[in-house]
């Protein structure tokens, strides 16, 4: 639990993500909702961070701020030493980056959604190939070879030609993971990847995620699978009402929580 919150653009080499003083407000004026209220978080390269917290605590919003799906109201997001969304010039003036540059920044970050969001008009293989073809500019043959390899990795070699509607929820989520991996990301974000699944399908998705963690991928996972957190996480972060309440190794946060709110929450989930 290093609290390295220096607002520098050059992160120490071992940090993949460095969040400093993140605030997020939706809307303006009287109708504004203050969702994130100053979040500081660092994620070392190659580590797995699990984020827990009650509904509405801002877990999804935080993930979406990391890859610029939402722009933050205050603070800074630094991924792999590069500040997301903004550039600070020599005179200390902050500039918004061009959407094309932001799109390029996102390529290093894979994201897996609760409801999969596979492209329904494309087959499993085409879903995986789409971004490499259109974004990385891979040749069709290379993209296909890569898709085959990735689908094999998530155990779906025999489903390459199926449309998402022809796959079970667990299979769809595994294709979604393969799709994100096809961009060769350095960081993977998972937003409740198993919450929309039937209980018997949860295991197959978690197994793929465990493999990924073992391969050294840096991962930030919002989940309520306490077993997964205990087994895989290096760090567990408990959030409530837009702030990090407690953070530490699973043995500390899950088994001996210091904060009352964490204990109450865990009592509900376990």
């Amino acid at each position, binding site marked *: 639990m290093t609290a390295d919150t220096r607002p520098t653009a050059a992160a120490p080499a071992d940090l993949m993500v460095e969040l400093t003083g993140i605030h997020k407000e939706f809307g303006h004026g009287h109708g504004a909702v203050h969702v994130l209220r100053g979040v500081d978080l660092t994620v070392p390269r190659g580590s797995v961070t699990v984020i827990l917290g009650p509904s*509405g605590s801002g877990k999804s919003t935080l993930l979406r701020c990391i890859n610029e*799906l939402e722009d933050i109201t205050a603070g800074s997001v630094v991924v792999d030493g590069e500040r997301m969304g903004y550039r600070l010039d020599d005179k200390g003036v902050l500039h918004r980056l061009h*959407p094309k540059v932001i799109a390029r920044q996102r390529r290093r970050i894979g*994201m897996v959604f609760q409801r999969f*969001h596979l492209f329904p008009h494309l087959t499993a293989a085409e879903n995986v190939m*789409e971004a490499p073809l259109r974004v990385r500019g891979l040749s069709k043959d290379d993209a296909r070879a890569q898709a085959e390899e990735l689908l094999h990795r998530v155990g779906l070699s025999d489903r390459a030609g*199926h449309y998402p509607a*022809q796959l079970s929820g667990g299979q769809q989520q595994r294709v979604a993971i393969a799709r994100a991996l096809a961009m060769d990301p350095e960081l993977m974000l998972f937003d409740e990847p198993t*919450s929309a699944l*039937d209980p018997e399908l949860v295991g197959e998705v978690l197994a793929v995620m465990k493999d990924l963690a073992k391969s050294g991928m840096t991962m930030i996972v919002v989940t309520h699978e306490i077993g997964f957190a205990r087994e895989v996480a290096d760090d567990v972060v408990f959030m409530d009402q837009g702030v990090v309440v407690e953070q530490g190794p699973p043995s500390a946060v899950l088994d001996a929580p210091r904060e009352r709110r964490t204990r109450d929450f865990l009592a509900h989930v376990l």
Partner: protein
Amino acid sequence: MSDPIPNRIHARGVPRPGRWVGAVVVVVIAAMAIHGLVTNETFRWDTVWLYLRDIVVIRAIGWTLILTVGSMALAVVMAVVLAIMRRSDNPVLRGVSWFYIWFFRGTPVYVQLVFWGLISVLYPRLSIGIPFGPEFFAFTTKDVITAFWAALLGLAFNEAAYLAEIVRAGLTSVDPGQAEAAKALGMKDATILRRIVLPQAMRVIVPPTGNETISMLKTTSLVTAVPFTLDLFYATNAIGNRLYQTVPLLVIASIWYLVITSILMVGQSYLEKYYGRGFGTESSARRRRGGPGGRPSRQAAIAAAGTTTDDPFIEVTP
């Protein structure tokens, strides 16, 4: 040959006399109508048969098809642009699109066609240049916008207003999560629109656009307002007037419009099938797994409701 199911039910159906009565009544009425059509002297079926494949008529069909396809093609392109403008962040683009749709939907296409016919009178010279400033390029209107182009542009401009609303509805129908997933993969907005959103919107766009095409086929009969005189309706009318036999030529026009409509309907059903891929009910894999067959639909219902899924306890609640 032993039946694995014992005591299979063999029961008589429920008597449905009403069905038979209804069917007989409808068939009799239809027969009367056909009889009246075929035996009525004023239809002059001999004339109909004689002129059905007349070279003038066939050529007119060609012009009608060119007008239909040409104006629809142009209208589709304009409509996509208008719909994208309508959804843009730029208030000027939004306003212009709104005004265009308001204007071209709000005036009769016949009147619009008359104006297109008058364009060379209203604007004898067209030029490209800076407003109130220098001209770069100018031409005489009547040399460029002939009656054919006036008709085609008139139809297309009017149609684009209707199609723009259809396209907009299609774009709106696509789950925002799709664009978001594409964004997270690092795609640019233009790529997302072209590769992810539009193909899915097509499923919603194609059926009403098929209707519009069929409707356009018949709207081409109004180009006489320009006046453009080579289309099917004008041509058959002209022959009818020359022969003093208006009715049989109207029958010919109707027959050909019906034939073309039927062909367009076949094309439409192919397009619908193509853009419906991946959305079909043929999710065989899901049904074949039997056992927890009810589950996926329950999942879908939960996801669709969009309210309960955000409950963090949903998967741990026994």
